[in-house]
């Protein structure tokens, strides 16, 4: 039996251990889950080191001739920031860790902001507008659906003379339509999730049967 066959049998055993959860939480399931977490941690370490950190080190700290002193200092910066994050646990030196957090938050916010505008807002708004031109009836329905969904997500309301805070009748009516659209969307997505997991489940059953029958 070679390493590949041993791997296949190991996969078979671990699949059964995971499926044993159908009968309730048990030791076999927990063993498999802890092995999974350990393997995942190991692979994430490998990918992070080999795919991200080593190329960075080779391009900066480990090639002083190509990048100069400035490049080498730049090469140390992310590791210093990482070490600063470790200081967050200390009550006295904790504020130093905020510098690293600030840097990550600043760049992350900028990327999220630009991504949201150029990757979601503009393309989806343009697609919704153009769908009316492509198919008048369905395009108009899509436009109504998108608008009512957005109205459903807003919580602006007026204070009534009695002190009660209520949304206007028109906004409530459009919001109710939006709620319906959101619910239908979530129902369809839920069905998609069921179909996907059913496909994966049947593939796993096929794998188990193939192992048993020697296929």
């Amino acid at each position, binding site marked *: 039996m070679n390493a590949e066959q041993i791997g296949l049998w190991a996969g078979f055993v671990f699949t059964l251990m995971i499926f044993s959860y159908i009968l309730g939480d048990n030791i076999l399931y927990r063993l498999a889950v802890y092995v999974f977490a350990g393997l995942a941690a190991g692979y994430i370490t490998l990918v992070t*080191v080999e795919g991200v950190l080593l190329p960075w080190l080779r391009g900066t700290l480990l090639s002083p001739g190509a990048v100069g002193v400035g490049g080498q200092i730049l090469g140390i910066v992310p590791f210093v920031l990482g070490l600063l994050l470790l200081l967050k646990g200390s009550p006295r030196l904790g504020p130093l860790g905020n510098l690293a957090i600030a840097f990550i938050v600043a760049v992350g916010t900028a990327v999220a902001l630009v991504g949201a505008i150029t990757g979601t807002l503009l393309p989806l708004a343009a697609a919704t507008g153009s769908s009316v031109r492509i198919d008048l009836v369905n395009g108009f329905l899509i436009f109504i659906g998108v608008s009512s969904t957005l109205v459903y997500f807003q919580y602006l309301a007026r204070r009534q003379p009695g002190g009660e805070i209520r949304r206007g009748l028109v906004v409530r009516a459009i919001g109710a339509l939006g709620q319906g659209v959101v619910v239908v969307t979530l129902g369809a997505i839920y069905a998609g999730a069921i179909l996907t997991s059913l496909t994966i489940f049947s593939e796993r059953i096929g794998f188990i049967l193939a192992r048993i029958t020697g296929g």
Partner: protein
Amino acid sequence: MRRLGAVITSALVIGIGLLTVAGLVVGGDLGWLSAIVEAFRIRDISSIFLQLATITAATTILIGILNLLVVHLRRVGRREKGWGYSLLLVLSALAVIVLAVLERAGVLKGEPALTTILFESVQVSIESALAGLVLFALVFGAYRLMRRGVSWPKLLFVLALLLVLLAALPLSAPGLLTSARDWLLAVPVSAGARGILLGIALATVVTGVRVLIGLDRSYRE
């Protein structure tokens, strides 16, 4: 001193954030704005910031994994409840790392590599089995939905769910069911998904702008 630190942190976020946005957004056809970006090489600065943030994030991932291993090793050392599971987790992680090091050093040879076999046979098998297990949770969740009273949103949810599921059945004459499913996915579901995504994007923009103009300073806590 603490106050000065807070001011420096806010200034860093605003400065770095705005420079990164400028480098990412401003193209070559925005007149004087493009000229400033070109003159001060803001695009290069923005690119360096992105690289530094990526490497810092990778470093934090490694720190996180190190912390995971230390926490579980501590559990093993103190013989706490479930220490056997912790030992298994640590051994699994170390096994992958040691195997990879031996392979890179040329000690372990063979095609496909042992780490690849371990990944494809064990890791992927467990992942797939867990994803398959989700089926039971989803079906049970859908079954329980209507047991706590019927309301029109619940009814709509179940109707959409059933329509998509029934239309997926391999019937000999699907006709109306498939057409209804296709229309549902193309019109209301598409509209709802767009609305949800637009809502998320709008919320991201609002929060992002609040952070970049210094109104939201939760990172200082």
